[in-house]
């Protein structure tokens, strides 16, 4: 990283510092969510520790009018889009399937069924193109997702319809217990060629490399030059989720090479070497992250329990059939009256 030019990719010192700030903040949120899960406040938590550079670099590279279609691990990206983290945790607390308005943040709901969001992203991008819009779609998924049929079908459509979409694989090298070498015998990035568009493999722990790869892919898409695939190589430093026990399938020594490539520490070292980050700034960012964590925790604990009837029956149909409304009434009649 040390040989990077000062204002990398035309980013101002302020913007360069902000990449660091965002990475620190989302890592703090990730850590806090893990704690909350352990305290029983969340049903499940999927850490993204080690993947901060990919999440921040890619989100910041997109314009605010662009759309993001995530899997389930993109909590950090959602925060960068301005979605309230405490509110979002309602999903992991089991309060709601959809804690934010996808149109307001241009950030579609989390998708648990692996790779099923990829065709959605392509269709959305096809729609952008049909409307002559300059909006572009960023579609995010893991390395495991690239094995699913939906993934391949979507890639092919994107090439055929020249959809303005950027495919970002967060290759964290694990799909639960299955390592990359058992997921595919080939290269993820090189597959793009077979679909008729460009694919690149980049260092997903280098926030500037991610920023610049995603920015140029988005620019190409915006110019009508079609899709791109970016394989950001990173590492899942934590468990798959709080329900997982990685000691059953990987060794501490597997992590060692990646600990020394921590995306935040390496970037901080570079910023310091360029005199773009001093102790005072680092401290105030840490303090800001601490404040965010406290607010997130407070927000989560104060999240109201939605009404059961609304949670179960709202948002099932836009135009609910009469029979459905009757079922809702019958359900409400069975509930104990609230004092």
């Amino acid at each position: 990283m040390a040989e990077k030019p000062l204002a990398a990719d035309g980013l101002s010192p302020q913007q360069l510092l902000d990449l660091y700030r965002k990475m620190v903040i989302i890592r703090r949120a990730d850590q806090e969510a893990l704690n909350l899960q352990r305290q029983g406040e969340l049903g499940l938590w999927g850490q993204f520790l080690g993947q901060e550079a990919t999440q921040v670099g890619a989100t910041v590279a997109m314009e605010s009018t662009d759309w993001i279609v995530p899997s389930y691990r993109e909590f950090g990206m959602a925060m960068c889009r301005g979605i309230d983290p405490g509110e979002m945790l309602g999903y992991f607390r089991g309060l709601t399937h959809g804690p934010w308005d996808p149109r307001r943040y241009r950030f579609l709901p989390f998708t648990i069924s692996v790779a099923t969001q990829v065709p959605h992203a392509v269709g959305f991008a096809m729609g952008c193109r049909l409307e002559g819009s300059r909006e572009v779609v960023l579609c995010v998924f893991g390395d495991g997702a690239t094995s699913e049929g939906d993934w391949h079908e979507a890639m092919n459509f994107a090439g055929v319809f020249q959809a303005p979409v950027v495919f970002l694989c967060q290759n964290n090298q694990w799909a639960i217990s299955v390592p990359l070498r058992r997921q595919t015998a080939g290269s993820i990035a090189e597959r793009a060629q077979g679909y008729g568009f460009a694919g690149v493999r980049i260092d997903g722990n280098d926030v500037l490399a991610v920023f610049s790869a995603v920015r140029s892919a988005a620019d190409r898409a915006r110019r009508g030059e079609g899709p791109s695939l970016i394989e950001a190589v990173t590492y899942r430093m934590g468990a798959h989720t709080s329900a997982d026990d990685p000691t059953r399938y990987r060794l501490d020594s597997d992590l060692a090479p990646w600990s020394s490539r921590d995306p935040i520490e390496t970037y901080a070292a570079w910023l310091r070497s360029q005199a773009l980050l001093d102790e005072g700034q680092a401290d105030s960012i840490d303090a800001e992250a601490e404040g965010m964590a406290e607010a997130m925790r407070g927000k989560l604990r104060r999240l109201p329990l939605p009404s059961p009837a609304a949670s179960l029956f709202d948002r099932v149909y836009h135009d609910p059939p009469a029979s459905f409304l009757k079922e809702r009434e019958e359900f409400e009649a069975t509930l104990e009256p609230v004092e």
Partner: protein
Amino acid sequence: MSAVTLGKAITQGLRDALAADAKVLVFGEDVGRLGGVFRITDGLQRDFGEDRVFDTPLAESAIIGIAVGLALRGFRAVPEIQFDGFIYPAFEQIVSHVAKYENRSGLPLPITIRVPFGGNIGAIEHHSESPEAYFAHTAGLKVVAPARPSDAYGLLRTAIAGDDPVIFFEPKARYYLKEEMDLPVPPLPLGRARVAREGTAVTVVAYGPMVETALRAAEAAAEEGTSVEVIDLRSLAPLDVETLVTSVRKTHRAVVVHEAPVFCGFGAEVAARLSHDAFDSLEAPVIRLGGLNVPYPPSRFEKLYLPDADRILQAVDESVAYG
């Protein structure tokens, strides 16, 4: 005799099947090194090797598609689908090929697809589904859903040793349910229900995770003086209509319960069969109980969605009070 959990009984069933026949293969997502997300395949790769117990790439359609190919080649394929909600990418392979290949080729198709199913575990979306009706509706498939450890073992051994494809639904919320037993128990034929508790006033029909709930309801009903008979179907396809009819000829009333939504759920088949074959014996309409007709809710609300012992008791009372 020792206390064996449902999960451990299935593990032992797989182990004994692997030992009994070198053609048996166990595969799926995370079933090898990890031993499965529920640890059902724990230790099997270590003991039977990576050729016979293996992790696959993350692709359900291919997992089932290769099972068809392996079966055609003479293997007994025992693929795992990690969770109920992730069987859908494999729907095409199951409906168009697993169910129909024999019909087109005359060849045996020994495939046992293991699927942890059902809710009540506080999980995130897509991890609590009850998709059994889709498969029971598909001719060519056998569909089982055991409720207790000995049945799980016995049905699994029969399924794996048989030459027809079986969808083997495991009630994941009951993996820790214990039963005093000695393994191995004999293989259990598919298509035979059991009377899980004898009673005289109302028959409650259940399978998989709801059998335990129905037994609890029956216990409570007994305290209130109502004698409830509980039938554990064990097998949905083929369905043991005879055991159902025999019970209803005695009780004259029936309630059928499952976690899946009532509308077009498996209970509709049970109700229709009873209404036809035991029409003269029935003194009340067959009552269906199930999940609400909405997508499986966020986990904080699943208790309101799922039938519980109270709702079964209400249905029992309603049935008894009828007419």
